[in-house]
């Protein structure tokens, strides 16, 4: 039994699984259901100044589906809370009182003026919530008004607002970052410079999920018109993972607390974020796809994984993969691997062959001795791993390292260490110092 208790930016919760600010955390009714299901904490759906905004009275979601209509990406045009501020505050206070051991953080988005932030912070403090999250991420609606992503894409604004908030409250301040930006390190550094206690990322990615080819409008459409939305779910998880790792690796934000968000659906997804430097995680789309009970699988899975690895707590996993996250130019060019097809597991679909033949290096046979047979030809294989990724059978194709002799495909050595910065083909190569 591992210890799943979490302390993030000083905020405690019985496990590291929080719900992100979104419809699932809109009202007391939803949040109480979430806590009953076992979620460690929630970030309450973003509060704004009254009068509240209005959402469209029609479709707000577009989806991208894999086989069997499995939802892998969701695009939303939902805005911040459309409920009056006093009702939200009253509910937050009551829920925090009734669930003292769970984390309850409040997401906020108000105009980019110090008095607006001061006012709402003092109102939120009164609820005794555990902290606040600054919403600089909404890519639609609010950004058209100079809020949300309009702030999140300008590091100077992030630093400024973070500073205002830290001056106005003693609650922990988390800054939520938008991924719709070129280099996530700048907003993260700005949040830290402004004194924020942590960052959470990612918010949603600008998207259009489909186009109606009969009415010629993006879907979903309202009265014949469509807009871009914010994309979330399993489809964006790799984008989020990369951004989390960039911040965790950046010397300027080393050990800076990160709350990982982006398509987390299972314990493994959560563990991967933790390994890349997130101290806890937030979920939204998976809960909106399957309901709140998914947290049971996450708790069970993470617990078993930590036991198997001999980790006594979540902290022992956080950031463990960061030392192994590097830049392309430092990868070992002398580490040569070739694909190997396990003929006992192979079901002979031939997909590995055709993708290699059509689009890559023509390194997989289709026949041998006149019969259907799929086998790797080392002299052509560059070890790119495409076949491994398209094969429908897990572990049927694996990569095997060549440990001696020359690479039959390139003639290059297979031992030792050589990276691009040292390679003779690189005009900018640094020569190694001669030995003494």
């Amino acid at each position, binding site marked *: 039994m591992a210890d799943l208790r979490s302390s993030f930016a000083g905020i405690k919760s019985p496990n590291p699984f929080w719900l992100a600010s979104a419809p699932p955390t809109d009202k007391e009714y939803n949040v109480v259901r979430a806590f009953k299901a076992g979620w460690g904490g929630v970030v309450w759906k973003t509060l704004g100044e009254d009068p509240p905004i209005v959402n469209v009275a029609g479709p707000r979601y577009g989806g991208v589906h894999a086989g069997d209509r499995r939802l892998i990406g969701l695009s939303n045009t939902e805005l911040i809370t459309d409920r009056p501020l006093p009702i939200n505050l009253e509910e937050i206070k009551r829920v925090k009182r009734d669930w003292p051991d769970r984390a309850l953080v409040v997401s906020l988005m108000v105009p980019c003026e110090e008095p607006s932030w001061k006012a709402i912070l003092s109102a939120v403090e009164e609820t005794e919530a555990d902290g606040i999250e600054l919403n600089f991420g909404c890519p639609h609606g609010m950004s058209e008004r100079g809020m949300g992503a309009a702030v999140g894409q300008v590091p100077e604004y992030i630093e400024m607002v973070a500073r205002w908030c830290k001056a106005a409250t003693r609650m922990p301040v988390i800054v939520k970052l938008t991924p719709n930006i070129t280099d996530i390190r700048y907003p993260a550094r700005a949040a830290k410079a402004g004194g924020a206690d942590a960052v959470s990322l990612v918010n949603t990615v600008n998207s259009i999920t489909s186009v109606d080819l009969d009415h010629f409008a993006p879907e979903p459409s309202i009265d014949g018109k469509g807009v871009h939305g914010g994309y979330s779910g399993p489809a964006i998880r790799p984008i989020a993972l990369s951004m989390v790792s960039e911040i965790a690796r950046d010397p300027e934000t080393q050990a800076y607390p990160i709350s990982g968000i982006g398509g987390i659906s299972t314990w493994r997804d959560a563990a991967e974020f933790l390994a890349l430097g997130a101290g806890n995680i937030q979920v939204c789309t998976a809960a909106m796809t399957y309901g709140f009970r998914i947290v049971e699988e996450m708790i*069970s899975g993470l617990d078993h994984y930590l036991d198997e690895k001999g980790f006594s707590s979540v902290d022992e996993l956080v950031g463990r993969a960061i030392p192994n996250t590097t830049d392309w130019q430092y990868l070992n060019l002398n580490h040569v691997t070739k694909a190997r097809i396990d003929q006992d*597991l192979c079901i002979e679909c031939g997909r590995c062959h055709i993708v290699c033949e059509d689009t890559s290096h023509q390194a997989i046979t289709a026949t041998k001795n006149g019969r259907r047979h799929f086998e790797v030809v080392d002299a052509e294989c560059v070890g790119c791993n495409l076949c491994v990724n398209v094969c429908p059978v*897990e572990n049927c194709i694996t990569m095997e390292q060549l440990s001696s002799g020359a690479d039959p495909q390139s003639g290059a050595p297979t031992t030792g260490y050589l990276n691009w910065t040292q390679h003779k083909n690189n005009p900018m190569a640094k020569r190694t110092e001669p030995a003494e």
Partner: protein
Amino acid sequence: MDRWEHVMTAGREPDIAAGRLAPEDYKTNFGDLHPPLDKHQAFVEADRCYFCHDAPCITACPTGIDIPMFIREIQTDNPKGAAETIFSQNILGGMCARVCPTEVLCEQACVREAAEGKPVRIGELQRYATDVLMEEEAHPFTRQPSTGKVVAVVGGGPAGLSCAHRLAMHGHDVTIYDGREKIGGLNEYGIAAYKTVDDFAQDEVNFILSIGGITIETGQQLGRDITLAELRERFDAVFLGLGLAGVNAVELPHDPFSGADDAIDYIAELRQADDLDALPIGRRVVVVGGGMTAIDQASQSKRLGAEDVTIVYRRDEDRMGASDRARELAQTDGVNIKYNAQPKRLIDTKGHVSGIEFEYTDERGGALMGTGETFVLEADMVFWAVGQNFVLSPADGEAIKTSQGRIAVDQERRTNLLDVWAGGDCIAGGEDLTVVAVEDGKIAAESINRVLSA
């Protein structure tokens, strides 16, 4: 002389022999009926589950296993977590995965049955997960500190095992009494061999006992070696998981002879046989009855090498107790099934059965009547599989209330005697399924715990 005897027997010896098949055939015929899923198959199958809300499969499961959750745990490569989810509701999840008629329980309720006529293979996924965990040394549950209370469980079958385990988890000390040499009940002595291979029944017993706090007393039969009165004296509570000790008989006029036996006795012998090729089976076998026992006897006879095996059931197909899937299995094995006929007379030659005469039946006004038309089947062995019944007397017949021939219990499985609970096939209103027995044992254990903790 009866004209049938003259035609059929003509001095023929009954053809009963062991070792009718090549040695490897026994391995094939009695190997896993459903080979376990490998990892790839498990992932593909688990992927089909929609993770329904308030899932119909959970409602259909008599032990209420959280099926969508355990399947999701398999999907995320957490098979031990999946097994814990299963075992927390059904400690005999391993055996149930092998014997449960899922086609009329969870798999019938599955929304993918409604959608495509192809339910998720829940039973096989359950086996996949429980197999992984049962390979481990460590028992997944922890025993509460000892309460000092002692409970007697009479009968070491699924109901008794389930009750004992749950009581032990709560910290009580349990003694299981069973009349046979080994415990496990029908899991050990009755389930068809190809459903539980490699001594699984005993592995499961050991797995269950490893919670600690449970003592076994074999060779102790209620009524013969111990009495209910003395158990009630020595223990704080008693659970009766007695099963159905009685076997319904078909009363037919005949002279004394051999070769017509109860199917359950032969099945028990088969299950305990070290070498199946030493087990004699007739060349022509007739099985009278229409339930799972009849199917198991017939299929196993064929798999031992009998040439002609016929099941004869007195009513028509729709009324058969055996499930469709069981019937299809028997027919695929080459068993012939005849409907609407009841046994009229056994025919013997020199003191051994050589045939059985049947009369066709017709249902008129709710009663089964003979039509007058008869036929004879040659038989070297005849097996009766017309049902089992509960025998009350060992359980202090005067004091315990019964209903429709079995022990009457309330919703908590408590009898009219306030310190005696009961479950499994011996209680009224059940469905005679392993999984139902497990649920009875669990409910009774929670009730006993509540009473003992008060």
